[in-house]
């Protein structure tokens, strides 16, 4: 049996230690609040708190919230409470230390959200055109620092055209029937609650027959666009399409990714299309490099997807499927995404090619988890998708 952690003598006591433990869990990515600390302390009063095994089980039932956390819990517990007799200086870690600790989980989420619509550098209007154009081959780093000027890629006319297509697509997706019923003038069933109420005013004679039916629920579209080097030639089409999609519906969200994940909905919603492109250019700094589809999707699923993806969502992934990550990461991320109840549509520009087969490891791994896998190279291709999306 491993030895229990010794706490520093000036440590304030058991309650603070439990609070410190919760902070330790929080630092490791478990989402716990003050309420959990209270519950944990209350739970400890109902067991033999001196028994490490009992304490472990009790705290596990309070703190773990899903199967994955439940599996990780034992190690986290050991590292805090059974630290082989080492002295733990302060049970409640100070703020600075905590922030450092959580780099891989929370900070990463913060990183993508802090990028929201912020301008990092003034736009000199030159962008990629500053290159000398001698066509030298240089070793490519995973994150290219070259700056693409989105205005060269997308024109306001493109956006206008894409907007009408996107609107049509959004409409095709949006028509989902709910299983619940709402009052409606022409419905398939009687609305009894209302009928009784109204009949009271006519002396119990149900003169008017209010009805209810299943209302149409709008589906939310969430688009994820790959802007890695291999996708640059399609960026023009896809960015215009995204811009159109975003501007067609307020509930639509869009992200760009290659090695990072950047939220672009706010930038694209700018009422002036040109200024929207300017903002997008600034956000897309460093794009055009290698792609980490798996890692980006994984970050998306763990972070923003929690708020923006639910069972009424359709997630559009625009990517060619050339991933530098192991395919398992991608497959795993897609499984998690699917578990949120959404439908996943992958639009691959390469699929339009003759003899294309999804044989890249990433694409092959992703295929079983997709609801629709379609080609999309031009705006016309995208427009042709409407009927397929209707049957999704």
């Amino acid at each position, binding site marked *: 049996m491993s030895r229990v952690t010794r706490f520093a003598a000036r440590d304030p006591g058991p309650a603070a230690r439990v609070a410190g433990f919760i902070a330790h869990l929080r630092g490791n990515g478990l989402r716990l609040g003050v309420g959990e600390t209270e519950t944990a302390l209350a739970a400890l009063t109902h067991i033999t708190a001196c028994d490490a095994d009992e304490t472990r089980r009790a705290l596990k039932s309070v703190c773990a919230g899903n199967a994955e956390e439940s599996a990780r819990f034992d190690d986290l517990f050991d590292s805090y409470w059974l630290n082989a007799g080492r002295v733990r200086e302060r049970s409640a870690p100070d703020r600075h230390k905590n922030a450092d600790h959580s780099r891989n989980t929370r900070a990463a989420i913060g990183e993508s959200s802090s990028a929201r619509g912020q301008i990092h550098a003034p736009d000199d209007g030159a962008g990629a055109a500053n290159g000398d154009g001698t066509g030298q081959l240089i070793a490519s780093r995973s994150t290219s620092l070259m700056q693409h000027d989105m205005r060269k890629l997308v024109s306001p006319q493109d956006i206008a055209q894409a907007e009408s297509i996107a609107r049509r697509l959004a409409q095709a997706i949006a028509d989902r029937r709910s299983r619940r019923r709402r009052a409606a003038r022409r419905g398939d069933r009687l609305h009894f609650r209302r009928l*009784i109420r109204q009949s009271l005013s006519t002396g119990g004679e149900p003169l008017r027959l209010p009805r209810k039916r299943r209302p149409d629920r709008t589906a939310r579209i969430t688009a994820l666009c790959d802007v890695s080097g291999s996708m640059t030639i399609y960026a023009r089409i896809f960015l215009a399409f995204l811009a159109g999609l975003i501007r067609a519906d307020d509930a639509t969200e869009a992200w760009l990714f290659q090695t990072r994940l950047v939220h672009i909905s706010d930038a694209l919603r700018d009422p002036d299309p040109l200024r929207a492109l300017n903002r997008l250019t600034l956000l897309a700094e460093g794009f055009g490099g290698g792609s980490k589809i798996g890692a980006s999707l994984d970050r998306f699923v763990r972070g923003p997807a929690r708020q923006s993806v639910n069972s009424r969502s359709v997630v559009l992934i625009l990517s060619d499927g050339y991933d530098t990550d192991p395919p398992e990461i991608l497959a795993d991320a897609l499984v998690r995404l699917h578990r949120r109840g959404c439908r996943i549509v992958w639009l691959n520009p390469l699929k339009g090619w003759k003899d294309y087969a999804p044989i890249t490891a990433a694409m092959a791994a992703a295929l079983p988890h997709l609801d629709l896998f379609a080609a999309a190279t031009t705006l016309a291709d995208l427009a042709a998708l409407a009927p397929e999306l209707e049957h999704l």
Partner: protein
Amino acid sequence: MQGWRDLQRGMAEHGYIAGDDLAMALHIALSLERPLLLEGAAGVGKTEVARVLAALKSARLIRLQCYEGLDAAQAIYEWNYPRQLLAIRAAAEGGETGPGVEARIFSDEYLLERPLLQAIRQTEPPVLLIDEIDRADEEFEAYLLEILSDFQISIPELGTITATTRPMVILTANGTRDLSDALRRRCIYAHVDYPERDAELAILHARAAQIETQLARQIIAFVQALRREDLEKTPGIAETLDFAAALAGLGINDLTDDPTALQAALATLLKTQTDRANITTEVAQRLAGRAA
């Protein structure tokens, strides 16, 4: 304080072999009066926990089976509309009018209690089982949160009904979709896994005592080996019990004796066409041979 050991023992007496984690989670949930969320694959005995708990506490079991489109009228309460209509007609014939009729038709007598309302109006604390919560849609989950946090329901015509006793709430989920963090936060959580060999043997012994020790051992080894195969639907404990019952029914005393009978009994374990095709007679015999 050994409350959770007692609970574990009590459940064992009622034929449920609970793991330490599960027994502790249940103990904490009962002591803190919090709902318990059980997650795990289908057929590992999540629903059974509620049934055994009800038997153990001699409490009433109220079950709410969730499904997509489940709404307040199905889960909480509904007025008995046909009866109300009849009452209005009868009152009109009798010359009764106005507020009197209204007060009468919106009284308890005309209220149809659905599981949630039923649960909070019991005099003795019942066990409320909210089964497969992940099948219900998110609106319902939000509504449920409200009820689970303060155990009161407001009915516009009657006023707010506050719980006389706190029901013991057990929610089960098997991952049709992710549950909201808010719901998870409210609950004590336990993940129910496929049992270890010894635990499963104990379960089989508790549930089907007539099976001989030798055969029981074989059955468990066979099922455990089968779980390690690449299957679409891994058999749960419920399936193991069915399998044991089927073998007993076929009069088999040793798994390796009769390949055709074993293959027939596999119908209780393998529930998809692909799984049936994958576990051929040879594979089954190999697994059974190793188990023996």
